[in-house]
């Protein structure tokens, strides 16, 4: 299994790449939550404009986001194919036995736009800095030490274990195992394969622990002052927070477009 590498364009040097990771984390996460708050159709339009603008500023190539849409687009398709037909009372037109409903259509528009905008901002958040720096920023923002250590360690070994699985699958295939055929034997073998991965990883973890304590694991507090905040970082953060606040305020003040329709 090929792991989705999300930070392959982390060295492009745009405004967002240069933004201090802690400020970026706060600014973009707040914006993401503000987006998920939106219910007004006009605000949806503003959301698309804002997220597209930020994406352009980030200099990330278009192919970067397109490649990552393959999995989520399956979800979108399900939403588009079901909601307009089951949700709401106002029937716009009937296609055979199916009734196309207005409320459902609006809901689809809402969900899809919010989803795509949040996805875009999320990709910008994790795509414009080395993934590890983002994790370190989380740690600096108060992620509990146990959690931070776990994220770093499991990220480190994800690739090793992933390639273990890949090789084991190849070796099974070369000995004639057809993974598409269903039988109780296939279930056993899936369980054995999973169990073997767990056993290998467990053994590895015992060695890793030894290696860690021999280099003094736990003898020093986690590093501090890894990041430096400049005034321009704070200004950028301020701009993003204001934008987020603007969205929320706008939605509360004018945001009855959808609600009115749904009543």
């Amino acid at each position, binding site marked *: 299994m090929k792991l*989705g590498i999300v930070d392959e364009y982390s060295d492009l040097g745009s405004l967002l790449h240069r933004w201090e990771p802690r400020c970026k984390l706060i600014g973009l*996460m707040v914006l*993401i*939550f503000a987006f*998920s*708050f939106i*219910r007004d159709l006009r605000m949806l339009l503003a959301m698309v404009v804002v997220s597209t603008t930020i994406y352009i500023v980030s200099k990330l190539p278009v192919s970067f986001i397109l490649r*990552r*849409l393959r999995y*989520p687009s399956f979800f979108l398709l399900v939403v588009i194919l079901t*909601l307009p037909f*089951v*949700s709401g009372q106002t029937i716009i037109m009937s296609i055979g036995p199916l009734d196309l*409903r207005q409320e*459902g259509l*609006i*809901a689809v528009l809402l*969900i899809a*736009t*919010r*989803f*795509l905008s*949040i996805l875009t901002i*999320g990709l910008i958040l*994790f795509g414009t800095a080395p*993934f590890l720096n983002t994790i370190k920023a989380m740690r600096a923002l108060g992620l509990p030490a*146990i*959690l931070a*250590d*776990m*994220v*770093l*360690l*499991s*990220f480190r*070994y*994800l690739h090793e*274990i*992933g390639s*273990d*699985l890949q090789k084991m699958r190849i070796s099974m295939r070369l000995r004639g195992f057809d*993974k598409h055929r*269903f039988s109780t034997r*296939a*279930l*056993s073998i*899936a369980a054995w394969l*999973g*169990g073997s*991965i*767990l*056993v*290998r*990883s*467990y053994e590895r*973890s015992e060695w890793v*622990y030894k290696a860690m304590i021999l280099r003094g694991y*736990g003898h020093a507090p986690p590093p501090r002052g890894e990041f430096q905040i400049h005034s321009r970082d704070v200004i950028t953060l301020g701009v993003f927070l204001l934008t987020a606040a603007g969205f929320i305020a706008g939605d509360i003040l004018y945001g009855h477009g*959808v609600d009115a329709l*749904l009543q």
Partner: protein
Amino acid sequence: MHIPDGILPVPVTAAGYAATAAVTWYSVRKINKKENPRQDIPKASILTAAFFVVSWIHIPVPPTSVHLVLNGLLGAILGYFAFPAILIGLFFQAVMFQHGGLTTLGVNAMIMGLPSLIAYFIFRLRKFGDKESRWKTGVFGFLSGAIALAISVAMFLVILLTNIPADLDVGTERAAIYTLAIAYLPLIAIEGFITSLLVVFLQRVRPRILDGV
């Protein structure tokens, strides 16, 4: 079975984050009470990665194939580390595969993680009574795998269908929940069956793993 961004209203996602923070805090507190909490961190982390990888194994179920959720097994093996482990797994999934979501991370962690802790308590029950046998391990493995997934499915469907922006009428909603729940039954059975095979395998090959982290 992860709820993506854009569907749930902010109060629900915020409540999800709050609940996740609370359960994480509780788990971390339990972990720190152990004699040597540091000793278990590499074990729990690397097994977290391993569980993540094992969930990529596809099981053929004609006409399609399914992959395992494994939150029951994860609870059975990782104990109080299960909740942080699931949180981390979901985080990776959202960031690397755009599967699940950033705003819904808290909700999804509750859907997967809470049943996982329940599975931990179920699997611990095998130690009661007479001597631990392979048969008993298998049965409790099945129960923890199947029950954890069943609870997750229930939570997932209820949260998803009651929070779709446009209202469904109550009848449709209930019908949808029941239909989907029934559709999930075979998956729950398979999950339980494989969890049971897996714990029996582990007991035979490396029983120490089952003694918890």
